[in-house]
């Protein structure tokens, strides 16, 4: 182009002369022109630090450097850290300490850490917190990042060490691989920038699409004029509601209520209206601004309780079932609640209000679609947690045979439920690729992510608990009004979950629940870690403490009094199998020094407890089918030197690939590094429902174990033939096949595997998993909350509250979890630590705020505050308690979601302990605390006068 500017850049020691557009940023030059995609784009606004590089010796956000300003600069990116094939000590330390999960923030973290270490070779923890304050990590790997940086000296001059981290063990074990803290399977690629996320992909002829969204909260589309956009040079195609199928899509089959692009009505600011595809992203962005849309604005409603009122604007008038904006109504009564309350010595009732929180993964959503063979074969790369549901929904909505759709899930930079459904990006990329015959990439920017939303439902809750004098819970009555936003998404399930999980933690004699999920003219809410349960759990744990206070009971004692026990059928017909909630309570109490601290801390210091737990995979799939939920194949290499594991489970940062590889290695009897995870691709791995409802370890783990057992059986059979013994007399362990009764007789595993291939051709093991039949009761909605197994955990949080400003600092967290047998202690602890960090954000900081016109006041990471490294408690102590889940692989169950649930209550209770006041609305901001303190003082003064 005419006004391009020639700049010189020395990147990782290589000199480049590059012509750049004046408005290019260093980030776009690195990624688009030099193809150094290790440097990530998380926000484009200097808020997240994912694009941190070192420029002339200093850490900078590459998105905040105008390319011409970098002329003559020396730049080091993550790709420049490893030298001569040897990883930098920092990279090794990150791997060893598990200082990364989804890996999307990792390149930026590493560069900030490198810049810090270049200036301060042995930084203190405080210096690390200062130096990395500009790098946000939504997985909450901060405690490990701090440790990895402090321990970098141990890795200087060393080769990559892949031995398990030995200090992370919790339990005794007799397994070789399961139960060890082997390094994450994906870590080497994630610390080098080699891991490819969807937005890193480039295909020849690739186009870029963008979506235009509604600027009004509720209205009818009167006219759309796309002519100016079409006329813009570089624009290839434009789509509006008229061009997309009439078939509605969604998540819950009972409520498919979305069109790919709005047909006639828009229901929130951000509703998708039109889309453009162009030669590059800038042109597509310019083009959508040229589309003229005329709306007839309609009255809108933004509050779920107001949406219920007579005369409120009707958001889905086309369907009479939603006449009063009630999207989902749940009415459950188990046992005689009135008798339960009559029997109680104390009944307390309280209103609690939750917050709209956003998953805010650092990786923005991205989709890349390509059609081949004259439109006979579609490939979609998508940053999704649920490749199968995307495949299913594309097939269903677009009328394409499922077999023609290949869905590939590249590395995913965090999801937390926000990438658990098919997005307009997926649909539009596919449609554009079909119409243009070229590959099409579509991404959300940070703002668009907030508007697409699918975050946590805000719940307005009324909770009533009755107890006997000794603390025994006699009855619970719970009503929740959920703000669902404009569409259903997961919301039917959310409304049921809100009520279903209440009776799983404590024994409750009688229980009544009413859930009302309301449509409002706001972005649609969906599934977010702990799906529907964190707010009710916050309310319950808070009210339980208030009751304990009234009874003069210790909060831990009242929990122990009512704690769930193994082998219990709850009042709502959920079968609790393994359960060590009591042990988590007792051990958290003892480890935290609860008895010495509770009631003995000075003003401004507080200690509080909270419990939580979650399903280890939903008992039923989202759409009805008899398919097994998880399926796996293992192919033994011809030379026997290893195996490939084919499974479409979704590693999104939680560490599931690592866990599945461990399970496979253990069952096969070979070392961890001989199992190779094959890319998640629907053509080479069978159906798996994906990463939601904390299902992977248990469900995919069982399928993998079965496949491995199948493959091992074939290898052992070949060995048995050669050795002239029965296969039953043989074992496989740590790369050897041997006679169980006399282990010195045997052969290397690979030799046995070669014999198997030589004799019979391909050695393939297959496995599948389906939950036990008949889970749940026979009432409406009884399937939600069912699961083969449940996790349980207790958190004790210790906080300091500045009584003058209201600022809360979470100082220390003690967590004990019953996650069954632990497959990988390091990744388990990382998940718990991440929950601690996220819990701090959800309880104290996070809230998506809407302006009176329905737009979002804080659709960015500068105003929507997620915790940074500075919010990391100085001590997080996490342990798993001994437990064995008979339905889990090697006794394992979930950790990722359940571990978040105790946090909200624990912090709320600690703040109440520190301040003597309670805030009933999330987030518990410093301002709300100060106001409660002032109100209390005002009340006290008023009483004196």
């Amino acid at each position: 182009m005419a006004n391009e500017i020639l700049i010189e850049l020395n990147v990782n020691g290589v000199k480049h002369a590059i012509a750049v557009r004046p408005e290019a940023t260093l980030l776009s030059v690195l990624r688009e022109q030099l193809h150094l995609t290790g440097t990530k784009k998380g926000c484009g606004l200097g808020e997240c630090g994912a694009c941190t590089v070192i420029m002339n010796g200093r850490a900078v956000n590459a998105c905040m450097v105008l390319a011409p300003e970098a002329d003559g600069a020396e730049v080091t990116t993550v790709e420049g850290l490893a030298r001569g094939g040897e990883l930098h000590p920092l990279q090794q330390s990150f791997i060893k300490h598990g200082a990364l999960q989804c890996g999307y923030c990792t390149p930026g973290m590493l560069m900030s850490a490198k810049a810090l270490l270049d200036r301060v070779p042995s930084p203190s923890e405080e210096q690390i917190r200062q130096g990395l304050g500009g790098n946000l990590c939504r997985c909450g790997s901060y405690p490990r990042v701090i440790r990895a940086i402090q321990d970098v000296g141990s890795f200087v001059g060393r080769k990559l060490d892949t031995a398990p981290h030995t200090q992370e063990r919790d339990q005794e074990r007799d397994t070789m691989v399961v139960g060890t803290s082997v390094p994450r399977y994906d870590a080497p690629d994630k610390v080098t920038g080699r891991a490819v996320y969807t937005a890193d992909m480039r295909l020849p002829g690739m186009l870029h699409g963008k979506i235009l969204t509604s600027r009004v909260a509720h209205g009818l589309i009167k006219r759309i004029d796309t002519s100016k956009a079409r006329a813009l040079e570089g624009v290839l195609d434009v789509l509006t509601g008229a061009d997309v199928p009439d078939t509605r899509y969604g998540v819950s089959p009972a409520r498919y209520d979305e069109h790919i692009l709005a047909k006639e009505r828009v229901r929130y600011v951000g509703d998708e209206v039109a889309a453009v595809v162009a030669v590059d992203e800038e042109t597509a962005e310019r083009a959508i601004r040229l589309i003229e849309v005329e709306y007839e604005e309609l009255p809108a409603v933004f509050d779920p309780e107001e949406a219920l009122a007579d005369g409120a604007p009707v958001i889905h008038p086309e369907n009479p079932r939603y006449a009063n904006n009630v999207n989902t109504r749940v009415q459950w009564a188990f046992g005689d609640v009135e008798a339960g309350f009559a029997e109680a010595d104390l009944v307390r009732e309280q209103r609690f209000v939750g917050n709209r929180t956003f998953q805010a993964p650092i990786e923005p959503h991205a989709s890349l679609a390509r059609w081949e063979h004259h439109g006979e074969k579609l490939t979609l790369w998508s940053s999704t947690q649920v490749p199968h549901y995307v495949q299913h929904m594309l097939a269903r909505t677009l009328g394409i045979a499922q077999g023609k759709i290949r869905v590939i899930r590249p590395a995913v930079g965090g999801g937390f439920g926000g990438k658990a459904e098919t997005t307009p990006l997926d649909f539009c990329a596919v449609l554009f690729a079909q119409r243009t015959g070229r590959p099409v990439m579509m991404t959300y920017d940070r703002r668009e992510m907030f508007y697409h939303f699918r975050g946590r439902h805000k719940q307005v809750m009324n909770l009533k608990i009755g107890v006997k004098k000794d603390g025994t819970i006699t009855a619970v009555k719970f009503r929740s009004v959920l703000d669902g936003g404009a569409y259903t998404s997961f919301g039917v399930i959310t409304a049921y979950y809100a009520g279903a999980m209440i009776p799983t933690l404590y024994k409750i004699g009688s229980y009544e629940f009413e859930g009302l999920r309301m449509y409002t003219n706001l972005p649609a809410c969906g599934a977010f870690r702990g799906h529907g349960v964190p707010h009710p759990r916050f309310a319950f744990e808070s009210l339980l403490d208030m009751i304990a206070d009234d009874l003069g009971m210790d909060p831990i004692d009242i929990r122990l009094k009512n704690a769930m026990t193994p082998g219990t059928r709850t009042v709502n017909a959920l079968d609790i199998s393994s359960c060590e909630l009591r042990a988590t309570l007792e051990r958290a109490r003892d480890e935290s020094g609860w008895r010495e601290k509770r009631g003995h801390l000075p003003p401004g210091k507080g200690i509080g407890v909270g419990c939580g737990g979650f399903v280890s995979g939903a008992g039923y799939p989202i759409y009805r089918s008899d398919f097994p939920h998880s399926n796996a194949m293992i192919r033994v290499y011809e030379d026997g030197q290893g195996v490939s594991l084919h499974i479409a489970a979704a590693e999104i940062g939680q560490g599931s690939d690592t866990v599945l590889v461990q399970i496979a290695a253990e069952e096969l009897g070979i070392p961890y590094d001989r199992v190779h995870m094959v890319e998640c691709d629907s053509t080479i791995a069978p159906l798996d429902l994906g990463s939601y409802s904390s299902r992977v370890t248990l469900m995919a783990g069982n399928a993998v174990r079965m496949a491995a057992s199948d493959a091992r059986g074939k290898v052992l059979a070949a060995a048995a033939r050669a050795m002239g013994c029965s296969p039953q007399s043989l074992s496989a362990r740590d790369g050897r096949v041997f006679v169980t009764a006399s282990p010195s007789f045997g052969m290397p595993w690979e030799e046995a595997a070669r014999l198997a291939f030589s004799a019979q051709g391909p050695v393939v093991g297959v496995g599948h998993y389906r939950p036990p039949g008949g889970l749940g009761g026979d009432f409406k909605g009884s399937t939600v909350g069912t699961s083969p197994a449940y996790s349980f955990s207790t958190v004790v949080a210790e906080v300091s509250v500045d009584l003058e400003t209201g600022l809360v600092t979470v100082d220390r967290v003690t967590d004990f979890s019953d996650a069954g047998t632990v497959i990988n202690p390091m990744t388990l602890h990382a998940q718990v630590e991440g929950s601690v960090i996220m819990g701090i954000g959800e309880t104290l900081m996070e809230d998506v705020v809407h302006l009176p016109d329905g737009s979002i006041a804080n659709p960015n990471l500068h105003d929507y505050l997620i915790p940074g490294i500075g919010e990391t408690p100085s001590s997080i102590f996490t342990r798993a308690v001994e437990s064995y889940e008979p339905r889990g692989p090697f006794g394992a169950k979930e950790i990722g979601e359940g571990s978040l649930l105790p946090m909200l209550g624990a912090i709320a209770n600690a703040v109440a302990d520190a301040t003597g006041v309670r805030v009933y609305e999330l987030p518990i901001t410093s301002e709300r605390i100060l106001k409660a303190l002032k109100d209390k003082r005002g009340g006290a003064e008023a009483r004196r006068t």
Partner: protein
Amino acid sequence: MELPALQYHRPGSLAQACALGRELGESARFLAGGTDLLVDLKQRRVQVQHVVALDGLGELKRIRVEGGMIRIGALATLTDVAESAAVVEHAPGLAEAILTMAAVQIRNRATIGGNFCAAVPCADTPPMCIAYGGSVTIVSSTGDRVVPAEAFFRLPRRSVLEPGELLADVLLPLRKPGRGAAYARFSRRRSMSLAVAAVAARVDLDGGRVREARVAMTSVAPTPMIASEAGAMLAGQEPTDDVIQRAARCAASEARPISDLRGSAEYRRDLVEVLAVRALRSSIERARNSSGA
């Protein structure tokens, strides 16, 4: 969200920069560190066709002691300023204020001049410069002028700069025995978070009494502002808790906060009082420790 198409200019001298600024007027913005401007351009909050990059003006990057004052070039990055030996010695309160700002990556790019010229209500460097009694030099083709730091701001995002004018330096006085300064800031996250309220204080003690005190605030008015009455109240007083408390209350009454995402007006006023007490206490403590030094 990408940048709009831009024309990029890179003047080699201050005179050229001023001339370009005047010629391009409202269609251009000066580009220093870019950490505010690029965000505003990407979000289309600022819509211009030209950027005039100042990074060729090496003389504006220097920090030096000259003519009985510290002269901080407007293009010195926040990191440069916070780490400058002159600043650390003579105006340590400014280094303290800077280290509360944003995060390393931003401070490595953002400049002190940019922080002034963006003139956002929550700017963190101006209050401390005001408290120190600092000023700024403004240059243009028609001549230079010096403006007290507190008089630089007019409205949110609006300073006294006219088209063709450039902020060249921030000037601060040299240290004195018996002087102490401190910055007390409240934000909802430790890094990468704008101040909900912040108070800068500088106190000169003389034989146990306050000779002169200045208090300035940010995020609690349309612009960074001086709390002149609060400062004046302290002059000649022995800085007892009661005196400090009264001055802090006065500062709170001088604040003109609004309610926004970060906090309500009422909360901000409460914070000003608390933060003013803290900033004054630290200043006095530091002033006592610096006596005779």
